[in-house]
């Protein structure tokens, strides 16, 4: 694997929504055959605390977030033969069914696209400095982290 290879990487932290079609199209180019994308969505109910979610607010650590995501994407394209990667993460206040995060990876071969997208999501979940607070009329609750996210990241053994 050529350690110096460069691929088009787009990383955005933004308040605004994103357009999945537009982002998928950007990842399509002449020699790409496969694009795998992940979209995370705000749920209307938190089963762990048995509570309705009316809104959610996301904060992050500006600067460190971008650095961490860059590291994760770099590991991904050093490990798999991919042709492009995009990570968009929203911050601020979001409502149920709103889109939170987009991770898209393009590759000549579909399994590389599946694996590297899955890898980026697992690591983003455990490394990128975002925090969610869930809100309803009765309370405001910072989301507890998931031990299962640590386990998910470990399956890539790096």
């Amino acid at each position: 694997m050529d350690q110096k290879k460069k691929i088009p990487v787009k990383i955005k932290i933004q308040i605004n929504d994103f357009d999945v079609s537009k982002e998928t199209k950007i990842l399509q180019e002449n020699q790409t055959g496969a694009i795998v994308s992940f979209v995370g969505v705000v749920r209307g109910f938190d089963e762990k605390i048995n509570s309705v979610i009316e809104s959610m607010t996301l904060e992050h650590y500006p600067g460190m977030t971008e650095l961490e995501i860059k590291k994760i994407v770099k590991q991904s394209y050093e490990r798999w033969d991919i042709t492009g990667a995009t990570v968009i993460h929203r911050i601020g206040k979001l409502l149920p069914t709103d889109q939170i995060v987009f991770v898209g990876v393009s590759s000549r071969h579909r399994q590389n696209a599946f694996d590297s997208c899955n890898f980026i999501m697992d690591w983003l979940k455990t490394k990128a400095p975002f925090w969610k607070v869930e809100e309803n009329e009765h309370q405001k609750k910072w989301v507890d982290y998931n031990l299962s996210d640590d386990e998910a990241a470990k399956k890539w053994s790096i």
Partner: protein
Amino acid sequence: MIIKYFSWIKEHIGKSEELIELPDDVKTISELINYLSNLNDDYKKVFVKKDLIKIAVNKTYCSVETKISNNDEIAFFPPVTGG
């Protein structure tokens, strides 16, 4: 030194950021945590939950043994919950 706090740690300490002059005998994150915990109860109540706190020096993850200087930017935050 700039210290940043996020999520419930920010709320417990009551600020998102502060500027402190690092005492000469505080040379590691661990010593910084002790120093802050002795300042007042807000810090103490946060830092007893040491196992639930992640640390970054200059926007990179680090451990409590990491050496620090007065020019560094330190951040304390809970395990991340994005995505």
